[in-house]
């Protein structure tokens, strides 16, 4: 299956005045693991991140094309994009390829540039957006991640609790998936700082 060719796992969670986004680090080609530091989460603004699981070549192409569109937007509008608008921009980019899609199912996490309100959303490979108030997951082990998130998420977690929850959710979910894992990376996005942590996980 094309979406399982490379393998990936991404989670985004909402907390109190903060959001978190986490991904695994594996780049593999079917059974073989080629790299253990592959970037799947990209910074699109000081408080806006997008996670791209799926076919690795499309992960990189979608990121590059999105960056292009975002640059033009920021030049024309002379301001940072809101997360909700960014969601529509990604959705449009994916639907343009409705009959020959990019094999990525993005996850967006960020804070509004003016109000700093937390925002998380995900999308399928042809751009259908879904905004939630708790968590979003995407990748080859999405079922495992849903199970973990349902267990560990609670509303209004502060950044430390959010970090613990999202890390445990990711690590235990990828330990039940053969094609994702090999380490993890977490970004905790708050109003005045972004904390990036590498997770020590199973490397098998």
């Amino acid at each position: 299956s094309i979406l399982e060719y490379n393998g990936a796992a991404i989670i985004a969670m909402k907390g109190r005045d903060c959001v978190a986004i986490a991904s695994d680090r594996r780049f593999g080609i079917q059974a073989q693991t080629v790299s253990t530091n592959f970037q799947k989460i990209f910074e699109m603004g000081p408080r806006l991140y997008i996670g791209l699981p799926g076919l690795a070549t499309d992960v990189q192409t979608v990121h590059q094309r999105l960056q292009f569109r975002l640059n033009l937007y920021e030049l024309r509008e002379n301001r940072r994009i809101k997360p909700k608008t960014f969601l529509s921009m990604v959705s449009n980019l994916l639907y343009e390829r409705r009959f020959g899609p990019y094999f990525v199912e993005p996850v967006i996490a960020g804070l509004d540039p003016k109000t700093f309100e937390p925002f998380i959303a995900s999308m399928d490979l042809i751009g259908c957006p879904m905004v939630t108030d708790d968590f979003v997951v995407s990748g080859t082990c999405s079922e495992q991640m849903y199970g973990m998130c349902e267990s560990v998420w609670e509303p209004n977690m502060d950044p430390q609790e959010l970090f613990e929850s999202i890390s445990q959710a990711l690590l235990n979910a990828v330990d039940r998936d053969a094609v994702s894992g090999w380490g993890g990376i977490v970004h905790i996005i708050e109003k005045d700082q972004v904390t990036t942590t590498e997770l020590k996980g199973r490397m098998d």
Partner: protein
Amino acid sequence: MALADVCGLKTNQLKNSFLSDFGGSSTHLLDDALTSTTNFTVPYGIDPVESLKEFTNPKSDVKIHFDHGTTTLAFKFQHGVIVAVDSRATAGPSIESQTVKKVIEINPYLLGTMAGGAADCAYWERVLARQCRIYELRNKERISVAAASKLLANIVYNYKGMGLSMGTMICGWDKRGPGLYYVDSDGERMSNNIYSVGSGSVYAYGVLDSGYRYDLSVEEAIDLGRRSIYHATHRDAYSGGVVNLYHMKESGWEFISQTDVFDLHYQYKAEKEKK
């Protein structure tokens, strides 16, 4: 038997059977193994190879998928045989278990490894254990590794084409010294000094071949086996969990260790950084 004759009942459906009378257990170990297991429920009156083709044909809707996601290895050296295996079972991309026992203890001086269909390996190696015991009782001496592996190979050859999936290494120590045979469900049976079976075997061979010498010490051999499985679990998505390690000595097998590859990864990493 009169009713059986009237109905035209055939007493066995297996090809290449040596049996001439029904019901008596034969003095041939092979016949005994085959007849004692003809209590399989099969559809009456049809050729098993033809009817079981659907379970092996890749285009079929009912193909039984065997998971060869595994890494098992065994090698002979001056102090016996080292057997090392991983412990992961996968169903597609989903990890079903990280605690599978892939070394089958046939008897105190024979070990078999598991790759392919777990049920096939476990069942037929247990049949092999029974036949080895019968041999011991009849001949008042232990069966040789060559004979044990040949028994297993011949048993599964009778089921060739019916969809068994088994890739096993039979390890032991007999009069000729350490013994290691590779036996699979295609009927293949070979002996050599080093074998690795499974999806991660390519990675294990790399490490094994570069570190192997016949005159390794016991500690070096154990480390080599453990390291080879670790490297396979790191690169192969379908291998992982823990490394189960056995040492086959003249006095029989000894279970050496069970180590989580998580710990091995950070241990080897620390060793590299110290250098």
